[in-house]
């Protein structure tokens, strides 16, 4: 890694910290209004943070996994919607960088790196959540193979209200297929989702694709590889930034809970002086620290090269989502009524953290994979 790249990495991590600090007070408003303002979205995209681990040849900054993680933690510690914007853009960029043809990479990646194009990942459907192999969206070859016609309905798409282009998971001739669909094409309609439990500012939308025609060169990888390779690469990257976002959230909850426990006096003593409150605080502090170390471990494995650290990333995401959810819950408990108020920061983190236990692999799906991995490692000698 060159000195120039290291400098770019440090600069972008600092930019993420600065962006997070500037968003700290406004994030509650965005959550209440159900929207990150367009200008803020564009400003974040323009920092180059959204796909900063792309190689410089494609306009990225070549950030290391650890640097991407730190950036995601800064954003996630303040606003899960901002972290979600980074997550979806970098998921699509990772899938294209890995499985796009040379021409596709040259066409799409620089705009994703610059942030002049924002991407969404459209996989989930009514009947296909954890079981993405059951998507029903069709990607049919038309016009003698020169075009693809995409029809289906996608649900819960993060920043689906705003994305310029979607990486859509569907089927061609029954085989899983991935295809890029620009959202300004005829046949794309977006239905904003409001009032959901968490990630309220993340521009979530249900999307209908009604015979949307795209050129044949919009398909990423051959039919058959759309889920196992393309979507899997995107989801692996997504789990990594979600894990780090959860680290940021857990740490933010510990900080707010500790500040409150140290200064709020009840019964003549600070709250933290009550043993039971101290115990809550201690446990979430340890959970947050452990989550950070597991996320750092995943980053080290990923730094070893393409395709490495998939399981370590699942472990980190599992632990960090759990840490964030418990830190959110216990921080609300320690803050009491203040934690329940409409503008409560820990209350918002609590709601958002619950979503983190569901997205990019529900906790129970992660457990299955982790258990299988452990049995593989230790079961052979039995």
């Amino acid at each position: 890694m060159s000195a120039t790249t290291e400098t770019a990495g440090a600069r972008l991590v600092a930019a993420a910290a600065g962006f997070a600090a500037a968003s700290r007070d406004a994030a509650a408003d965005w959550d209440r209004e159900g929207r990150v303002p367009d200008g803020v979205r564009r400003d974040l995209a323009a920092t180059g943070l959204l796909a900063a681990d792309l190689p410089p040849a494609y306009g990225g900054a070549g950030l290391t996994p650890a640097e991407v993680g730190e950036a995601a933690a800064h954003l996630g510690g303040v606003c899960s919607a901002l972290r979600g914007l980074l997550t979806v853009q970098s998921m699509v960029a990772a899938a294209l960088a890995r499985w796009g043809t040379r021409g596709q990479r040259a066409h799409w990646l620089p705009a994703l790196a610059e942030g002049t194009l924002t991407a969404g990942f459209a996989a989930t459907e009514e009947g296909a959540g954890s079981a993405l192999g059951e998507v029903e969206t069709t990607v049919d070859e038309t016009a003698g193979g020169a075009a693809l016609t995409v029809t289906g309905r996608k649900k819960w798409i993060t920043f689906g209200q705003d994305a310029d282009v979607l990486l859509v998971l569907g089927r061609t001739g029954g085989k899983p297929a991935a295809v890029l669909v620009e959202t300004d094409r005829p046949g794309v309609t977006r239905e904003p989702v409001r009032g959901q439990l968490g990630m309220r500012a993340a521009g979530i939308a249900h999307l209908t694709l009604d015979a949307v025609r795209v050129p044949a060169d919009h398909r990423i990888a051959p039919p058959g590889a759309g889920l196992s390779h393309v979507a899997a690469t995107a989801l692996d990257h997504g789990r990594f930034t979600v894990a780090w976002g959860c680290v940021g959230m857990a740490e933010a909850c510990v900080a707010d809970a500790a500040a409150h426990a140290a200064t709020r006096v009840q019964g003549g003593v600070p709250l933290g002086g009550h043993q039971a409150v101290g115990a809550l605080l201690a446990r979430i502090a340890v959970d947050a620290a452990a989550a950070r170390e597991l996320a750092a471990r995943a980053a080290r494995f990923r730094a070893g090269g393409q395709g490495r650290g998939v399981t370590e990333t699942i472990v980190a995401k599992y632990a960090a989502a759990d840490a964030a959810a418990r830190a959110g819950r216990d921080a609300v408990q320690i803050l009491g009524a203040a934690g329940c108020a409409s503008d409560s920061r820990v209350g918002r983190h609590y709601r958002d953290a619950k979503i983190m236990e569901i997205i990019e692999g529900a906790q129970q799906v992660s457990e299955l994979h982790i258990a299988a991995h452990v049995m593989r490692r230790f079961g052979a000698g039995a």
Partner: protein
Amino acid sequence: MSHGSEPIADAAPGAGAEQITEEITGFLTDALRRPIGPDDDYFELGLVDSLFALELVTYVEQRFALTVEVEDLDLDSFRTAHRLTEFVRRKTGADAGRRTHVGDH
């Protein structure tokens, strides 16, 4: 672990098909926790989870010091140990001179 993460230096181009197949069936047997023969189609048999395809790509890349490009994603090449052996020999033989890495170009 019986299968190291370091590439086999002599896997290409002269390494015997038998040695490569043995390596691959060993990996598959460990990964899928049941004996896998050289012609068993583990995808067809439903033995793999959603992350296995990527894991297999990473294993082949690391173990045989090659890069699986999107042009190589004919999934039939990845279905059995024998077919993977043919793929590895193809990639590490004739193609070795113009091997490139994702993102390098």
